[in-house]
Structure formats: structure tokens, C-alpha cells
């Protein structure tokens, strides 16, 4: 027990008035927000403090590298109370079948303890098609089919948009968000009360990894994202229109340091784009959020998040002259990595997910998705998703992981690794700068090649046995395949009925009004002064489907072909 309580430090360490100020400030912020009601005792009756700092006092190096939660350089967390004050949001990805299926399932998830909802559309939606335009076998097998305002209305039935935070996995051009705003009007909820995030707004990540999303051309994507961000800054101010995604890159093979570096470079690109538009960094930076992968490389992930948080705070200061610490906050959602899960001995994945989740929690995340153990077998089933949520609750309540802020801070290993990860991440950012920034580095295929090389080299480590994977290249067992869970897919007939409902809806519309709305949208896209996203909301209200809106944008702005670097 060489940790010392904070009030002791304040009296013992009189040489550093700077530390006293930071410490006092933290303490007062902490107490204002939580106060004595937050006292926690462990099973042995020992009082657990919210924060531990060096017993020898805090020198300049400590303050420069670590400091206090909610203060520069943000290493120890972005809020003064962190998880002790407010734990992370449990944001499970869900989506299967029709809007009716989604609505029923999301209500169950909310009852089971989820505090926010996440809507994952069907791959047909990701690829910009209405459900009547794709092979029926694929409908609703990986997400919900949402093509119209009516579909969105059903998805959100009885879910109060002014109190539940919503994450939409809604790539450009954000048709689901447009539909949701129309539904909010119908619910009588003011747009200013809507909270949540457009989770797939980072088009750069879609060009370099996974290729699961529809894409406009790079310049077209750039315009629509900026239009939407500008629209939100004026009209939906509590919405986060941008989530910068490192998850795709890491899932595609980037190392944790590369994924963090590429993500920060991407965020920097977007921030510069916003500034070039005339938007105010003091406003738009407050709405930047991030989304990362958490691999099972436990300490590396903790260090990745701590280093990323520190670098972001310094980048916004350096590039945009930010002084307000609230704008340096590196808010992130994270998802446990499906790539680490194994088909062999699949129940072992529960252990893997637990470890990944712990790395993310110790890394100071704001929101977490834990994978179902069956992720590597199929689209996750409902009962298995409940285990994933229970895992979070166990970590929070039984393991008491929320009691202490940045509990690994101060470990020789973790601090040294955080510094080294920081160095690696900065090297990646430098490489991208040398390419002329993220936009150019993606255009040229530089980023794709980097990710591909790392994917191959990890695979080689698994092949050679340098990286042991339990049940795959070591500790193998004969398995009974029938013991594996079976996922029920949505009934094809129901999905086909959903598609014919859409066909009927389409033909019942007045052609004149459809043509007029289509032309209106087209004109907005062609005009440099009009906001494409505002025009999309009009189009959605006028009954245009997601597929129709995207068709117009594709004609006007061009399609973003995948750039494959073999």
C-alpha cells in the first residue's frame, strides 16, 4: 500500500504549486460532481479512493505526462469523475429482420439494462439499395431493413427520442438520420433534444477498410459530410454527426498503433475541412467522437487509448489553438474485436470478450459494445447478446472496475508502454502528413497498403506459432459441431412481404410528386449554396426512399469505387 490519499499529497508536497492547483481543481470538480455520497469500501472494509497518484509527490514530469482526469494532457481520462461518476454507455449493436423485429428486440435490450440503442441496418441499406432491389436471401440477415420514414417510425415506436440516446450505423449520405429527424417531428420531439451519434460517418475509413458501405466519390463524400456537420451545428446541436473510426482499420489488419495513428490523422483531416468551410473549431470539436476496436492484446490496448487521448489533446491545441479543455476531450466508443474470437471452442470467446472489455474500460472509454461469443459463427443471436451485456454488468458491479479512475496509471509497464505507443502513433501520423494528409494518402492507396501488410504479418505470426491462439494453433480439441449455437434467420417470406410492401408503397405515390422531389434534391446537389442534407430531409418527407435518394446523389456526385491494393 504505497498509494497515498490525495489530501495527504497536498500537504506533503509543497514544492510544486502547479500540482497543488491541478490537484485542488480536480478535487473540487470531483466533489462538486459526486461528493461524499460516492464513498466506496472494498470487501475488507478498506476505503477505495477515486484516484491514486505517486506517493512521492507529483513532479513536473508527472503533470506533463499524466496530470489529473479532465485536465491536460488528458492521459488519465477526459472527465474529473470518469467511470466512478458515470459509467460507460452499453451500446450493443443490434439489428435483424424487419423494423418490427428491431423494435421488439430493442425494447428487450433496454429492459435488460442497455442505456442507449444502436440501429444496424441490413447490408442492402449499407450498399445503397432498397429492399426490392437486392437478392431476397440476403435481406435482414445482418441488420434491419430501413428504407423509408415509415420503416424508421416502426423501428422507434414507443422509444422516446428525447431520452434515449441513439447510435445510427448510418453511412453517407445519412438517410437514416434524415428519417429519424422526420420521425422526431412526428413524436413531437424537438431536434435540439435528440442525442446520439452517426456511427458510420467516417467515409475515409470506408475507403480503406472493410468495404461494407456504399460510397460516393471521395469529393462527393467530403461535401455531404461537411453539409451534414454544418446542418447539425445549426439544427441538431446535441447530435454527434462525426464519429472517426479506427475500428475498421484495426479489424482489417492495422496494428493498434497504426489504427490509432490513422484515426487521429483522419480526425485532423476532417477538422481542417470543417475549418476551411468556415466552421468554428471551438464548436465543432466538441462534437467529434471516435470509435475503436479493442483487441485482446490487453496492455497494448490500454496504452493505445491513453496515448491516443494525450495526442488528441495536444493536436487540437497545436493545430487549432484550443485552450478550453472540454474541446480536447477524446470521447470514444469501443467494440471488442471479432477478429480475436475463434470458431474453435467458441465458449472461450466469453473469456476473450471479457479481457477485451477490461482493456477498453481501463483505457477510459465512454461507450462499449461487447461481442457475442458466437460472432465468429454467425450474426449474433439474442440470448448470446444478453451474455455480452451481462459481462459488462459483471465488470462494473461485481469486479468493481469503475471504482478508481485510470487504475493502471502509474504502473511502470503501462506508463512506459503508453510513451512508446505514443511514439509509434506519432510516427504513423508523420507518415500520413508526408503523404499530404489523410485524404491524399487514401486517394493514393498508401493507407490500404499499410493495412494489408500488417494483416499479412499478423497472419504469419499465427501460422508460425509465434502468436498462440488457444484452440486454433495450440490446445486443440476434438469438437462436437452440434454443440454450437444455431442462429435463426428472419423468415424469407416475411422479408419478401416487407419488400412487396415497399413496392406497393412506391407505386401508390403520385409520380408527379416523386419527380418533383427528385428534381428538388438534384437541384440542391447541383447548387453550391444548398445543403445536401437539408434537401435529403425534404426528400424523405416527400416519400423518397433511401435507394432513390442515393441514386440521385450517385448520379450527381459519382460513385466511390473500392481501391484494392493487392
Amino acid at each position, binding site marked *: 500500500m504505497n498509494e497515498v490519499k490525495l489530501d495527504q499529497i497536498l500537504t506533503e508536497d509543497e514544492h510544486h504549486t502547479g500540482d497543488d492547483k491541478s490537484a485542488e481543481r480536480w478535487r473540487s470538480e470531483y466533489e462538486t460532481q459526486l461528493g461524499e455520497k460516492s464513498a466506496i469500501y472494498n470487501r475488507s472494509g478498506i476505503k477505495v479512493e477515486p484516484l491514486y497518484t505517486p506517493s512521492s509527490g507529483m513532479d513536473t514530469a508527472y503533470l506533463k505526462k499524466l496530470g489529473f482526469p479532465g485536465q491536460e494532457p488528458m492521459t488519465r481520462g477526459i472527465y474529473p469523475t470518469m467511470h466512478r461518476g458515470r459509467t460507460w454507455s452499453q451500446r450493443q449493436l443490434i439489428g435483424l429482420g424487419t423494423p418490427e423485429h428491431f423494435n421488439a428486440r430493442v425494447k428487450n435490450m433496454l429492459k435488460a439494462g442497455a442505456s442507449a440503442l444502436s440501429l444496424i441496418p441490413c447490408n442492402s441499406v449499407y*450498399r445503397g439499395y432498397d429492399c426490392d432491389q*437486392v*437478392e431476397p436471401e440476403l435481406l435482414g440477415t*445482418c441488420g434491419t431493413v430501413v428504407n423509408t420514414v415509415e420503416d424508421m417510425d416502426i423501428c422507434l415506436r414507443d422509444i422516446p427520442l428525447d431520452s434515449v440516446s441513439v447510435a445510427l450505423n448510418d453511412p453517407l449520405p445519412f438517410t437514416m438520420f434524415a428519417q429519424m429527424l422526420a420521425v422526431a417531428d412526428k413524436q413531437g420531439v424537438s431536434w435540439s433534444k435528440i442525442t446520439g451519434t452517426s456511427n458510420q460517418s467516417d467515409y475515409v475509413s470506408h475507403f480503406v477498410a472493410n*468495404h461494407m458501405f456504399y460510397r460516393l466519390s471521395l469529393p462527393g463524400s467530403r461535401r455531404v459530410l461537411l453539409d451534414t456537420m454544418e446542418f447539425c451545428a445549426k439544427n441538431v446541436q446535441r447530435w454527434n454527426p462525426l464519429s472517426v473510426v479506427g475500428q475498421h482499420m484495426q*479489424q482489417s489488419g492495422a496494428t493498434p498503433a497504426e489504427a490509432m495513428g490513422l484515426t487521429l490523422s483522419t480526425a485532423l483531416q476532417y477538422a481542417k475541412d470543417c475549418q476551411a468551410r468556415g466552421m468554428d473549431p471551438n464548436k465543432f470539436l466538441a462534437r467529434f467522437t471516435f470509435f475503436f476496436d479493442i483487441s485482446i492484446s490487453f496492455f497494448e490496448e490500454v496504452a493505445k487509448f491513453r496515448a491516443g487521448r494525450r495526442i488528441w489533446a495536444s493536436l487540437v491545441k497545436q493545430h487549432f489553438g484550443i485552450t478550453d479543455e472540454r474541446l480536447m476531450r477524446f470521447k470514444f466508443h469501443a467494440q471488442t474485436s471479432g477478429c480475436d474470437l*475463434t*470458431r474453435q471452442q467458441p465458449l472461450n470467446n466469453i473469456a476473450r470478450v471479457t479481457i477485451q472489455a477490461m482493456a477498453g474500460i481501463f483505457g477510459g472509454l465512454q461507450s462499449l459494445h461487447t461481442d457475442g461469443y458466437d460472432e465468429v459463427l454467425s450474426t449474433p443471436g439474442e440470448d448470446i447478446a444478453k451474455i455480452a451485456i451481462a459481462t459488462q454488468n459483471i465488470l462494473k458491479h461485481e469486479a468493481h472496475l469503475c471504482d478508481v479512475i485510470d487504475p493502471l496509471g502509474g504502473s511502470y509497464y503501462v506508463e512506459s508502454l503508453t510513451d512508446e505507443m505514443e511514439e509509434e502513433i506519432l510516427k504513423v501520423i508523420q507518415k500520413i502528413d508526408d503523404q499530404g494528409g489523410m485524404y491524399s494518402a487514401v486517394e493514393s492507396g498508401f493507407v490500404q497498403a499499410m493495412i494489408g501488410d500488417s*494483416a*499479412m504479418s499478423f497472419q504469419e505470426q499465427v501460422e508460425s506459432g509465434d502468436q498462440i491462439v488457444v484452440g486454433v494453433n495450440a490446445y486443440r480439441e476434438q469438437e462436437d459441431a452440434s454443440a454450437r449455437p444455431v442462429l435463426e434467420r428472419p423468415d424469407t417470406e416475411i422479408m419478401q412481404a416487407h419488400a412487396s410492401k415497399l413496392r406497393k408503397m412506391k407505386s401508390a405515390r403520385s409520380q408527379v410528386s416523386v419527380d418533383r422531389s427528385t428534381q428538388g434534391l438534384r437541384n440542391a446537389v447541383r447548387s453550391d449554396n444548398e445543403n445536401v442534407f437539408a434537401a435529403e430531409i425534404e426528400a424523405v418527407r416527400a416519400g423518397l426512399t433511401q435507394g432513390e435518394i442515393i441514386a440521385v446523389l450517385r448520379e450527381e456526385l459519382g460513385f466511390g469505387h473500392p481501391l484494392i491494393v493487392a
Partner: protein
Amino acid sequence: MSRLQSTPPRVLVTKIGLDGHDRGSRIVASYLRDAGMEVVYTNPWQEIESVVKLAMEEDVDVIGISSLATDHLLVPKLMKALESSGLSHIRVIVGGIVPDLDELALQKAGVSRVFHPGSSREDIVETVQQLAEQALQARPTF
């Protein structure tokens, strides 16, 4: 056997349907290339017709379909399309996230082998080599 010795197997590695996760297909393509095979690699998001056309034009022995997000459900349609184009000698393998019940259905539809996560390089290369040989022998003579 003679063709295997003189010309390497020709393999089309591709993705059909809606999803584009390509980490697996890129790695498998490198495995096969490293083993000396001629690999035709495509962008994701291919349609069945274009895969059949490419398989014909490139005169491949084996088609490898990579699937992460249920796109393998379209493979039975691909098998039919290959057959009706006179390409039933081509062997088809599928790799990725394929639930057990789907694997049975794929086998019934004529898929030669389904590779799951954790499959080894040796297994994949050997299997493709054997299947290419079978395709060669099954090839219609003109």
C-alpha cells in the same frame, strides 16, 4: 496431371453479394499466389453473372468465394449459373463465417469445401491444388 506440372492452377478469388470485408480474401489470395498458382482477384460486391463471365474468360479451375456477412447464401445460385453456362467442371470453395447448417446446404449445392476461421495455409493450398486437378480432369473436351 500434365497441366498441373506445366501450368499452375488458375483460381478466381472473389466476393459476391453485399458485403466487402476483404481481409480474409486478400490473405487467401496471397497464400495461393505464394504457392505458385495464378490468382485472379476482384473487387468485392460482384454479381453472380460477372463471376461466371470472369471464370469463363479467365479459364479458372477453382473459384473461391469469401463471405463474412451471409453472402454465401447466394452461392447455390452461383452453382446453378456455372452449370447452365457449361462450367460445372469448375470447383467452388467458400471461406469465412459460415454457420454449420449453411455449410450443409452449400455442400448439397455442390460446393467442394467450406473453410472456417482458423483454417491453415497448408490445408487451403493443398485442397485447392487437389480441386484444380479434379477440375482439369472433369473439364469437357472439345
